[in-house]
């Protein structure tokens, strides 16, 4: 799966512009005036989002605002209360085989005795009925292709060293890489990742973010990623959907993560600061220090 040339690390401008929403059919994910109700309560409404092919989109917002719910709506697990949702040109839930999904922090049981490589394989053929004939590898072209593909994605996420260990014995970050490999193994057109950087330390956050950015750029996979901290993925971002209790805003990051937009969303003064190294810091937000917008550092700079 491609050596990624160094140029790919420098961002190309987003291919799709924010205009042309009405054409339809082309967007990989499109939400129009979408609203969702969970447990009799409207979580968010009036959400517009258009994700084009090969775009990297972040879904941001405070805890409990409905970010994971949005991913589930796109997957077709939860229905919308209003508006229209199209995924890969179909109704949600119809294109599951073309989507790679990484749920929010799965607590892998430490005693689970399944190897990482087996979990990756499930992403490839885990939904097939029947068992394959136990032919020797050299007689089955299909099994050879499967083996090579699995080795390829494991290599891509840099998990070769521990892929044959039981998943329960891998660290949180190692598990996350293997689960990303599982989501990738069938060459999806759309990756839906729910807080993949959760529980990773800073350097690994950067590593996994760069990996996802490369996959997005080099293979033209659209990535929709729920994130708690926008900074590790900022270099790769084409689009941001910011959910807050007062509403939602979508657009390029430099337009959405601004003092003005976030203050309007929260209905309270919020300040977006840019640190010397380019990191964004969100301060305030009317939710105390904790709910200040999900951008991590709310107080002083590091």
């Amino acid at each position, binding site marked *: 799966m491609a050596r990624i040339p160094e140029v790919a690390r420098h961002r190309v401008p987003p291919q799709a512009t924010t205009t042309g929403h009405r054409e339809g059919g082309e967007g990989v994910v499109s939400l129009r005036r979408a609203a969702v109700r969970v447990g009799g309560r409207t979580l968010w409404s009036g959400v517009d989002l258009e994700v084009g092919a090969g775009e990297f989109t972040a879904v941001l917002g405070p805890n409990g605002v409905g970010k994971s719910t949005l991913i589930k709506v796109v997957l077709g697990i939860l229905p919308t209360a209003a508006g229209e949702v199209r995924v890969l040109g179909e109704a949600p839930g119809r294109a599951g085989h073309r989507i790679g999904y990484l*749920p929010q922090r799965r607590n892998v049981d430490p005693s689970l005795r*399944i190897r990482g490589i087996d979990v990756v394989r499930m992403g490839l053929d885990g*939904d097939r009925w029947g068992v394959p004939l136990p032919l020797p590898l050299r007689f089955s072209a299909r099994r050879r292709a499967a083996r090579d593909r699995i080795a390829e994605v494991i290599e891509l996420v840099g998990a070769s060293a521990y892929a044959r260990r039981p998943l329960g014995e891998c660290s949180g970050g190692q598990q996350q890489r293997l689960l990303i490999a*599982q989501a990738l193994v069938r060459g999806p057109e759309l990756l839906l990742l729910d807080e993949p950087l959760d529980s990773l330390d800073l350097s690994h956050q950067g590593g996994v973010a760069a990996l996802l950015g490369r996959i997005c750029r080099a293979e033209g996979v659209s990535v929709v990623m729920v994130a708690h901290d926008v900074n590790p993925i900022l270099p790769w971002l084409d689009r941001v959907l910011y959910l807050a209790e007062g509403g939602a805003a979508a657009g390029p990051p430099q337009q959405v993560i601004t003092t003005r937009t976030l203050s309007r969303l929260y209905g309270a003064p919020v300040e977006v600061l840019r640190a010397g190294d380019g990191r964004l810091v969100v301060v305030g937000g009317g939710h105390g220090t904790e709910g200040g917008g999900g951008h991590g550092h709310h107080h002083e700079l590091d």
Partner: protein
Amino acid sequence: MVTTMSLTDTYPVWSWNPVTDLRAMWAFPFMVNAFRAGTVVAVLAGVIGWYMVLRRQSFAGHTLAQVSFPGAACATLLGIAPVVGYFAFCVGAALVIAAIPRAGQSGSGQEAALTGTVQAFGLACGFLFVALYKGFLGGINSLLFGSFLGITATQVTVLAAVAAATLAMLAVIARPLLFASVDPDVAAVRGVPVRVLSVAFLVLLGTATAATSQITGTLLVFALLVMPAATAQQLTARPAVGLAVSVLVGLAVTWTGLIAAYYSPYPIGFFVTTFALGVYVFARLARVLAQVLARRAPASARLSGSAV
């Protein structure tokens, strides 16, 4: 020597020549049937048990096993073959457990409480049936703790047919079931019918426990359903190898249990359970030892490195 004399009067003597021993044992049709039935059950329980341990549904399996007791008691009361009672009650209870809505993952508190209720009610019914059928008490021991005597050729045929059907079903759903067991959220998105598979697996588990309890008795089903599978999961994390190890351990434990029971006055359930426990403890120790050694090796390398 002298103390064993009384036993040798009634029980065959182990000659230390396996060929003669096996030949002597298999001269009796009931022993041949016992070996056939035990083999069928060991294979079935080894495979189904591996999935059960992986899915952490041992408690459900335990409940289904207990329910085979009222099943057999009810069948005896009605004057029909106990086999029918075993299967009817186990599969029925599997459907009841499957109907319990899953709050979250398997093993949630709510599910455990409801499953336990089914278990207690099943046992209570068993005692009621025993009370209604007077003079039945003699058979209770073998119902609860197993017996290898009196297994008929018909019974073996029924067991083999049920096992073949169960394993064929499992082969069809093997991969999606593995996916749904390890990673239900992602499996559901990939179009795997997680809920249907969960019901289907409980029914297969019901048939497997019904079959197993005819050999080990309802209280010792776990000897063949859990212990070989748990041993396999100690020894390997590969699904295919694990299934094979689970079956092999089950076969070894059943055969040695049958031989021991034949040459001694003690019940088969005790031997099968003890051997299975022994193998499990051994595997567990082996794994701990392997881990200690693996941790030691780099540590000692570092130490010697710094000493130089």
